[in-house]
């Protein structure tokens, strides 16, 4: 093995940047050992090669994707970018190399590990997004709907269309505390913004009342003689509970008129 094979790429973490890594891998005839985002710590003994994002090169790769791989496979790589697959960049690069070599039929490769990894990861992403469409709990705060989620995958882009169709006239904000970004909406525009931190204000009286009503409903609707904890946990994994009203039971309304010291 030559040192040449042990090259590591460092890119800016963007989709275009990753396409440039693909471009580099082809023009330099090399398969990097790792592709690191801007924040990843240095691991290679040999240092890493910084891949500069060149919009022109990225565009060349991008247009080639559906042509070479077909729409289904191109979509699969595009979506993988939003998943929490460990070393996703490397898997995506391997997938693309397979795709350039074999074309759309690569999706039929039974049991190919690369294809399987991408498919699994995207399935996980989409199913997490689907679950969150239901599990998100908004609080009404100054007439804005706000919520926090902590997903494993980067799901915000996959929630936008859904909540827009649901609440076209509202202002709302979904904060992804795991990826430090927010999906914000006001009629009729959506934006995804980086956001270091966010926490909702404590509930006002009306908000607290509806939270309590919801918990009342949640508790009453269970048929006790059918109690089944395992089933509930399988269908609604515990890691989602942290942000759900029926589990946080957070109804405390701060004193609206604190006593001011007499002057």
């Amino acid at each position, binding site marked *: 093995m030559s040192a040449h094979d042990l090259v590591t790429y460092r890119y800016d973490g963007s989709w275009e940047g990753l396409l440039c890594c693909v471009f580099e891998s082809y023009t330099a005839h090399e398969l990097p050992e790792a592709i690191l985002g801007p924040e990843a710590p240095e691991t290679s003994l040999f240092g890493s090669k910084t891949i500069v994002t060149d919009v022109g090169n990225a565009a060349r790769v991008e247009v080639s994707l559906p042509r070479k791989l077909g729409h289904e496979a191109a979509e699969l790589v595009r979506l993988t970018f939003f998943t929490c697959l460990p070393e996703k960049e490397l898997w995506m690069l391997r997938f693309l190399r397979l795709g350039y070599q074999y074309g759309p039929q690569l999706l*039929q490769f*039974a*049991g190919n590990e690369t294809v399987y990894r991408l498919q699994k990861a995207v399935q996980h992403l989409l199913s997490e997004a*689907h679950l969150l*469409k*239901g*599990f*998100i*709990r*908004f*609080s*009404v705060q100054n007439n804005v*709907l706000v*919520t926090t989620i902590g997903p494993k995958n980067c799901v915000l882009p996959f929630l936008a269309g*859904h909540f827009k*169709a*649901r*609440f*076209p*006239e*509202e202002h709302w904000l979904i904060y992804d505390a795991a990826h430090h970004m927010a999906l914000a909406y006001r009629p009729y525009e959506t934006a995804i913004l980086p956001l270091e931190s966010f926490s909702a204000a404590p509930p006002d009286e009306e908000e607290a009342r*509806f939270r*309590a*009503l*919801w918990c*009342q*409903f*949640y508790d*009453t*609707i*269970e*048929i*006790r*003689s*059918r*109690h*089944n*904890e*395992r*089933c*509930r946990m399988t*269908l*609604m994994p515990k890691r989602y509970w942290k942000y*759900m*009203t*029926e589990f946080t039971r957070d109804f405390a309304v701060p004193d609206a008129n604190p006593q001011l010291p007499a002057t």
Partner: protein
Amino acid sequence: MDIMEKLRILSDAAKYDAACTSSGVDKRAGRGGMGSAMAAGCCHSFAADGRCISLLKVLLTNVCIFDCAYCVNRCSHDTERAAFTPRELADLTMQFYRRNYIEGLFLSSGVAGSPDVTCERMIETLRILREEYRFTGYIHAKAIPGADQALIARLGMLADRMSVNIELPSAASLAKLAPDKTKRAILAPMGYIQRRIAESSHDLVRYRHAPHFAPAGQSTQMIIGASPEPDYQILQLSEGLYRRYGLKRVFFSAYVPVTANPLLPAVDTPPPLWREHRLYQADWLLRFYGFSAQELLDEAHPDFHPYVDPKCSWALRNAANFPLEVNRAAYEELLRVPGIGVKSAIRIVRARRAAALTWDALARIGVVLKRARYFLLCRGRRYPGLVSDRDAFLLAMMSPREQHLYRSQESGTRQLSLFDGNEPQLTALQREAIRCLPMIL
């Protein structure tokens, strides 16, 4: 009485209805509105009994002039009574919806005053939601048997899904346990709703903006275990309802004894959850796997097997159909193999176009072979190393839960009634498996 109390009483009274799906229709809010729906449905939470919570499931009131023996709301039962005003319930629905607690409303009601009066109050609730609040989320409304057709028609124009509950699987049980309801009073609105749904989809083809009657279709529910009908009769009835009334779903609700009544199971009888589960499995086979009720059960085998699921039982009773050559079997035949679902069958058909499938390839495309290997051949070969060990075979046929149930509840003397009748041309393995089953179970 405050809203909290009303919500407690009226959701408690509604919770025995099994239907809570928000499926069957795709839509989005127009400008100025609120509410969308996904055809696949959406669960917003899961209750501690593991059931999906999708809709705000409540009664408008639990006051009822009728006296159905199995129902907590019957007039002779001493219980707290409450009623929402239509405005209160509409407001609560909007506030819950806005916070994303729910996908919509499931509205049912006890019969207060008369069926017509009850129906009018339900209509008023939905009218406020749809017209004043411009709510476009999901609404499931129960038709009240005995209400005027014009009122059912109005309800259907406001709701996404309608249902009329059959409740008991025979006219005799109805007469005994629900003396105020007749089969006719239940089937008449069901038939009417079906005609309106059919007309409306016909009109929609011609005029795009024709008003839409219950676009997510119609469903019904049967209570399991309150009356003596066997699974066979229940499944036949379900099949008939799907065919005759074009129902989207038949729901089964394991009877939870609510009070002592000599006509009903004793109060400490656990709800027959396992039986409910088997009926749902069989219902699935009717709807998506091309089975008929007659194939799954008959007079000689009137009930599902406690340890082996309906598809497996069918396959064991029809052992002569197997083994099937994976590379030649029709899609419909593959669907009938235990362990092969719709997804696997599609994958097999897709993958075998490229090359004849081997056992390895089958596993690699994600077909679970635990059960299927006993029923298949790959390029004429049996699954390698498949031994005719009766314990292994039996365990393979059962899911972990079934194995657990079997070990915990049975003493080993019970006779298995799966294999009576003719068993022509069995392979050695099948004969062995079949012979040993009754000895073990």
